[in-house]
């Protein structure tokens, strides 16, 4: 009986296009992207969602979603999302940005969109390094982390300290949801999917700015095999960027 109901336990979601993604083997970007696509599919929003892709590894992500997509200038995805949401408030708008895009060149747009309480969802991919450009130091690189532009490790006296984006944005009144998740294990993938769905639901209820920060790996630029990169994420990234809900205006209900 059950076999007749739905023989497929897991398959490609309708939120993704048929294209093979451009990410390196073992890059967790693909999981994050799948979770976003699954969320808009499960919430029945494919026809009314517009996504905004950043500059970075996900720059051609408009090829991989089956919803409408816009490609923004470097870091300006929240500004483009603001315009889209104000012009088409009935649509669900999300941005998909990496740490170089959101936390470096786009920090002003991010903070001001958040403090204005723009009713958009930001999916923030934090892998502590610039991926597409070849592994340079990002604002989120850890102290002592070796990158192309910090070959002796990040010296905080010279390069400053990393930015914890969720903690920073959680202090702003316009933010409805700020949550940090990761996708390094099947259970964490499920939790991340729930967080993304919650962010979209908050947006559709008109509660304000929602951000879900996803800690991911960059096996290529970390110089680690995909399975070793998961261990590095767990040992180094999660202690510095603790997982959890930093702001949830409905948490008391």
């Amino acid at each position, binding site marked *: 009986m059950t076999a007749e109901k739905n023989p497929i336990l897991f398959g490609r979601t309708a939120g993704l296009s048929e294209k093979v993604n451009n*990410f390196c083997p073992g890059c967790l970007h693909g999981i994050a992207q799948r979770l976003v696509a699954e969320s808009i599919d499960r919430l029945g929003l494919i026809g009314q969602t517009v996504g905004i892709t950043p500059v970075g590894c996900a720059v051609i992500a408009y090829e991989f979603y089956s919803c409408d997509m816009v490609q923004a200038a470097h870091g300006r995805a929240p500004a483009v999302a603001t315009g889209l949401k104000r012009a088409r408030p009935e649509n669900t708008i999300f941005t998909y940005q990496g740490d170089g895009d959101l936390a470096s060149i786009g920090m002003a747009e991010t903070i001001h969109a958040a403090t204005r309480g723009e009713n958009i969802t930001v999916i923030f991919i934090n892998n502590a390094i610039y991926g597409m450009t070849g592994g340079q130091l990002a604002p989120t690189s850890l102290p002592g982390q070796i990158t192309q532009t910090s070959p002796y490790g990040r010296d905080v006296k010279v390069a400053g300290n990393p930015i914890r984006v969720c903690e920073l944005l959680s202090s702003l009144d316009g933010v409805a949801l700020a949550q940090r998740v990761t996708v390094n294990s*099947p259970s964490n993938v499920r939790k991340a999917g729930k967080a993304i769905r919650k962010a979209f639901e908050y947006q559709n209820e008109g509660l304000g700015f929602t951000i879900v920060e996803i800690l991911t790996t960059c096996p290529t630029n970390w110089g680690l095999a995909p399975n070793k990169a998961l261990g590095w994420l767990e040992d180094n990234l999660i202690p510095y960027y603790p997982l959890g809900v930093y702001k949830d205006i409905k948490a008391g209900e």
Partner: protein
Amino acid sequence: MAKVTVSIEYCKGCGLCVQFCDQEIMQLNTEVITQKGYHPAHCVDQESCNACLNCAMMCPDVAITIER
């Protein structure tokens, strides 16, 4: 028992499904080379699959389909 299919069009041979399979029935198939030049993953023992979906959850390329 469930049927695990890995699309060699999507699979990039990263091996995360191999690492997270509790039944240890996922392996990289070194006899096959995909169009992109990777050894794709495959299920070596369909009978032992308990449909936990761990491999599909961890597949960055959404290459895995699991059927009853």
